[in-house]
């Protein structure tokens, strides 16, 4: 069966520090991968998605970047965090448009 792993679960980082969140999927190949951010009291904001290795689509221009160095690995990064980057970050995968997403357990990022 397919599983998705996301880490770390919580992270407290100072303003201006770098960020790296990792997400991996097991039990499938060539998944569509996604990074979402969920701010308190708000819905889900799609940040990046990828349909293949090295293919990254950005939905919102911002302080973050994403990479997909391997088929089942998706990394969210920042060179310098801002206070506004605080939030709950969710990784998800899908085999295709009609299947829905499977989400990871999320990373709570607090920038101080």
């Amino acid at each position: 069966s397919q599983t998705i792993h996301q880490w770390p679960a919580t992270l407290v980082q100072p303003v201006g520090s770098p960020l790296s969140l990792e997400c991996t999927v097991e039990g499938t190949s060539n998944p569509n991968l996604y990074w979402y951010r969920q701010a308190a009291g708000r819905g889900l904001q799609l940040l990046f998605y990828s349909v293949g290795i090295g293919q990254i689509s950005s939905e919102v221009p911002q302080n973050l970047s994403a990479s997909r160095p391997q088929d089942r690995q998706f990394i969210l990064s920042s060179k310098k965090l801002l206070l506004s980057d605080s939030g709950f970050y969710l990784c998800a995968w899908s085999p295709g448009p009609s299947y829905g997403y499977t989400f990871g357990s999320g990373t709570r990022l607090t920038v101080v």
Partner: protein
Amino acid sequence: AQSVTQPDIHITVSEGASLELRCNYSYGATPYLFWYVQSPGQGLQLLLKYFSGDTLVQGIKGFEAEFKRSQSSFNLRKPSVHWSDAAEYFCAVGAGTYNYIFGTGTRLKVLA
């Protein structure tokens, strides 16, 4: 442009009472429709989905949803709510592309 509206930000029901959460979408054709549930601090879990066929779909945890094309709605229902159903519920729309549009969520509170 596609959009999803969940008109109720908060809903409170008594345990054992019936539940209906509203979802309206805007899209030119029949989209893929999903309901997700999120417990505090957790990722989202897929409850059910619709993309064709019978307009009444059954999901996990005793939930069901009905697609009504004339009303552009996909409301989630449960005949008898349990205390463990307290969570946030998200409706999502997919249109054959790689990413979905999520509503802003409805937070459900269950009274003992």
